[in-house]
């Protein structure tokens, strides 16, 4: 496993990663957690326009904007 930690927003469509931590404000962090953005969860990107992206966590599709994606730190998974 690589030690490469990058923001979620840097991932391109089709790539997957493992969530390390989120550095968003606590009130949004709770919402993200409930939706499945938790440490060690796998996430893949299905849409990324730069400003907004859609991630897939297990089978759920969650749309988030860049301000959040910039602050969710992940380790890319190579397939």
């Amino acid at each position, binding site marked *: 496993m690589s030690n490469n930690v990058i923001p979620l927003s840097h991932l391109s469509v089709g790539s997957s990663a493992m969530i390390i931590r989120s550095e968003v*404000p606590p009130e949004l962090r709770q919402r993200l957690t409930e939706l499945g953005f938790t440490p060690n969860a796998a996430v893949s990107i299905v849409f990324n326009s730069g400003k907004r992206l859609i991630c897939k966590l297990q*089978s759920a*599709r969650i749309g988030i904007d860049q301000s*959040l994606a910039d602050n969710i730190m992940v380790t890319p998974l190579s397939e």
Partner: protein
Amino acid sequence: MDRIEQSTSKYFTLVGNPNCGKTTIFNFLTGLHQKVGNYPGVTVERKEGKILYEDDSELTILDLPGTYSLSANSPDEKIVSDILLGKHPTVPKPDGVVCIVDATNVERSLYLVSQIIDLRYPIIIILNMIDVAERYGIHINISALEDRLGVRVIPTNAKKEQGLEEARQALKTSLRIYPLVRQWKLPQIAQEKLNELATMLINYAHLTEEQAFHEAITLLSTHRSLDLYSSTYDKIILERVAQDYEYFASQEIDRYSVFVQSRIEWIRTLCKGIIHRESKRHTVTDSLDKVLLHPISGGIIFVLVIAGTFFAVFSWATYPMELIESGVHWLSSFFESIIPPGSFRNLVIDGAVAGTGAVILFLPQILVLFFFLGILEESGYMARAAFLMDRVMNRVGLSGKAFIPLLSSFACAVPGIMATRTIENRRDRLVTILVAPLMSCSSRLPIYTLIIAATIPPLFIGGIFNLQAIVMVALYFIGILAALGAALLFKSTFAKGKSTGFIIELPPYSIPSIKNILYQMWERTLLFLKRAGTIILFASIVLWYLESHPVQPNVSPGEQLANSYLGKAGYAIEPVLRPLGFNWKIGVGILSSFFQRELFVSTMSTLYNLENSGSLVDGFRERVTQEIDPLPGKPTFSLLTALCVLLFYVLALQCISTIVVVQRETNSWKIPIFQFCYMNILAYVATFLFYRVGLLIF
């Protein structure tokens, strides 16, 4: 809010994440034995129903709003957690909980389930959308899940009604299931602190064991300032919590995440080996999203979808509207033939039939609009529309989340305002509530339709664009622009602050359940007819009385009207409305609209005696274009006046239901009062300016 009937029969609540198919399951379980609160539509209002079993036993079911957790971060979650914690002022604690779990997102759904288990409820799990899960390549070992949780798990495909009968029967027997015991474990230090705090809450705040456990977790992990709890808890408790914060920090435990994380670890272990996912499968939703969210094709489709919806509202409703019109006409002549001439006949025909008939006429348009909004919601497209519109909404300082409430407000501002509950940011939510009633709701539609059809010439501009249609579209756009403009103004003044973080779940696309949508339309129809049969009927009769009394023999109908109570009231307010170009009759229409907007149409119908004319619109056109306003010596309803009335109705807030729901949702009178003032002042000033400028042109 109506109370759960105080009876000996048991009652369960339905709880689950948004988009888990809860409404469909509720509809199946309770059939027609439902009591719906004021506003159905999206699952925001409380719905209560009964399951009637073959042996005459019954079970009450309360459908709760979709929620991801009991953290009480949004008003919807607060309702759910208040009821389950037994803290709700009017709804008692349920005897058990039916948890709906989305089979494609079991782990996430179990988060909420584990919080309910903590409250020691007898529960039963309905594992819905099992068919979708299979299609995604997700295989769930259901009996293993049952064993590990110690709960009955019933797989269902609610859309196809598979497994639901079994669920219905299971609810009856599952009542005997004993409450579960919490299985998830905290790190020892955290557990100790939690226990100590819970004990304090039991002793000092007199909470039950379950309430104390839940509240202790909330207090220890909250991101809110403890000052906010000062009215709820004693200082001694809050001081203790503050000490605990320091202790957690000294032990390097992240108090925000330790509780959530422990729960999630338990869920992961629980699911290990019983949920099997095949490696990535490309789904239909993936392919559809590629097109529907594409910056170009997605944008075009969005515009077509919205335009198509409104096109259907106006074209599909024509035939049923004609039917209703002839029905009303028939009813009029029927009463004329059986009631002897006199006051009573006038009351029935001129008051009751004409007044309510004029309003019921517009039911088809409203239903078509609800039908399409239902399809957008059920198909999963609504969330995509919000995602696409995030960019546009950002321009006025709001997020894409504000789009769904605003779109719903085209149907009715009340469900629109309730739908703002999903907006996490408090300022954004407030601004959305304030501007939502500027979207042209369906109760304005009758007024638009009547005035446009009667006064705007049906010219074709350039051979293709119908002038009447252009005016209608323009009215909707004025409403939208006013709403966006007001949002921008509010967001740059008192509700300043960047909208932080846009999070939206995009459910998988699915074929809308026509049954569900028809159900909603049926509820809507009942609600509408109830209103037509009560408030509007009553107001129509009162209006008729006021315009035909005191009775003056041997005068012309016009003079009779002018000297009636209503006429006098109209003349009294005329000075206020004269600057807008409105005569006293329009004034009366506007006054009555403050009770119920559609009453404008009933008022016009009564004031202009339209019950005798062939069709409402034709009759109205005939009368208003012939009538000369004595003061300027011009027709009362010139083209300019008509446009002014329309503009006024676009912008004015004339809806008691809206004011009530805003008060309830914001828990403040200041906000609805401010809203009432700003919208009506805006309507008055804009109409005044438009009229003045118009006088120079026309």
